[in-house]
């Protein structure tokens, strides 16, 4: 038996850097360093653990849809231990929205061949957390998403999803699409050996033609959503900062009372969100 795992990984601007929008209201990628979305490291980690816990032959392919530099994200995933990589790259992909991204991913996953897709819970830039569900919808296979624990055995995937009101145990037959949270287990650091080995691992590059996707189905022009404006949030006006010299709690209570947060009977009526 063999198990083919495709891990979807996104190349994103470093969240600790100064992120901006470009003139066309897409992400300005020149301004800030990019990296493998940290939450996708957890997806790679779970693929490696499934492989290590399996008696089957497991092949792990990492897949990204992104610009030329996105190759760095693939290299990182390969150095963690993935076997091979696919880079979907095409100028016409610039500005693709979530629906379009899921199209490119689903077509590439089908072309690559798969038994299991593993994604991160959300990217660290768009952060919608919807691409795994969209890919499952397109592939017509079960979605087993937002797992904090995952296992594969006997052609089935099982896992735990911690929701708002309950924690659920889930089960589905393969093939399936899984996404994992950062509660699933710390991602390993690439070893020196892993980094050296990654240099020799194959990275395939596919464009839209390879995936039978028309240019007008993706990119800014093909997007079903449009960003009309992007404004940097004004810096907060400097707040009051006091050093506690015994009176700190009293001063803070004074402030809270002034803002009417200390009420005798009920919490204050919420004001509408003004951003």
């Amino acid at each position, binding site marked *: 038996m063999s198990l083919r795992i495709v891990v979807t990984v996104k190349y994103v601007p470093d969240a600790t850097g100064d992120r901006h929008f470009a003139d066309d209201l897409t992400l300005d990628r020149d301004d800030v360093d990019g990296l493998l979305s940290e939450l996708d490291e957890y997806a790679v980690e779970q693929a490696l653990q499934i492989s290590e816990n399996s008696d089957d032959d497991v092949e792990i392919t990492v897949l990204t849809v992104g610009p030329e530099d996105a190759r760095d994200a693939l290299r990182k995933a390969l150095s963690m231990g993935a076997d091979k990589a696919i880079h979907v790259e095409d100028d016409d992909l610039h500005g693709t929205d979530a629906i379009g991204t899921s199209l490119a991913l689903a077509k590439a996953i089908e072309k690559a061949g798969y038994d299991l897709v593993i994604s991160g819970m959300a990217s660290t830039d768009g952060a919608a957390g919807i691409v795994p569900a969209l890919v499952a919808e397109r592939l017509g296979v079960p979605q087993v998403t937002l797992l904090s624990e995952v296992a594969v055995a006997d052609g089935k995937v099982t896992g735990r999803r911690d929701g708002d009101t309950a924690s659920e145990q889930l089960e589905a037959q393969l093939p399936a699409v899984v996404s994992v949270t950062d*509660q699933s287990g710390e991602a390993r650091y690439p070893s020196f050996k892993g980094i050296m080995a990654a240099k020799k691992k194959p990275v395939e590059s596919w464009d839209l033609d390879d995936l039978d996707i028309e240019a007008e189905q993706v990119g800014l022009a093909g997007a079903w959503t449009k960003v009309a404006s992007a404004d940097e949030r004004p810096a907060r006006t400097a707040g009051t900062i006091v050093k506690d010299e015994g009176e700190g709690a009293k001063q803070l209570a004074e402030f*809270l009372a002034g803002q009417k947060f200390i009420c005798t009977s009920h919490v204050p009526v919420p004001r509408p969100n003004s951003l």
Partner: protein
Amino acid sequence: MAEVLIFVDHVDGAVRKPTLELLTLARRIGDPVAVALGNGAADTQAALAEHGAVKVLTHEAAEYADYLVVPKVDALQAAYEAVSPAAVLVPSSAEGKEIAARLALRIKSGVITDAVDLEVADGTLVATQSVFAASYTTKSTVMTGTPVITVKPNSAAVESAPAAGAVEALTVSFSEQATGTKVTSRTPRESTGRPDLTEAAIVVSGGRGVNGADNFAIIEALADSLGAAVGASRAAVDAGWYPHSNQVGQTGKSVSPQLYIASGISGAIQHRAGMQTSKTIVAINKDAEAPIFDLVDYGIVGDLFDVVPALTDEVKARKG
């Protein structure tokens, strides 16, 4: 007037607050038609009518509890086809976003997630998002199909606006995919009696500086004096001091309360991503250089073990 479809988030018939906020926002666009699914669906009627639903489409079936996400997508699609709405609004929970996205793909519509405001400008529905850890505010529109938009909790004040809210049974036929992911067991989260983190008007959070699970009692005491929910940083959660369900931040809950009080939290970008849209921010931290102080309306540089219990006493004293 155009109809707007609202997906109802409820627990056994008790409607959660973000849905009531959606009804308020929906009335800016048209007449809200609510879709309530699963156990207790019809019991949502009174709350939904009170807040402006002209109609409540209900459907009960075991599938909604026994299988993940897809049965709800099937039902929302059935409602969409029955109503032909001008927009579909869904609360921005993890599940809500997945339902919205799959529906959008099926009905060939664009999807916008985590809107914090909605308005109609020149006949077009415009969604405001707060992105890059709330450092940017964007306005977006759906170019193709019927806008499907998920809206974050605390994006609008709940207003009552009584409407007919006539209950109608929705006819749903489940797709082949509906039973693909089985829920084999479910453990409900125990209620602490405190307000829900994402819905609370006040959140009191503790971080690594709290230095131990037992010490969270002082954070809880302050929260209780203010009628607040308790939050935690990932460092506190990873250390096992507080449950993950209380984590605030990029990979925890995103909160937008009237007041957020951070104690012993440095203010890392991933934490800020979950709380930066709070209206008033207060921090207690012994390090004057902590990045959290860049965000605050009021900050105390001091030891939380001195300040927090004393503040609790002050609050209690003022409440008399």
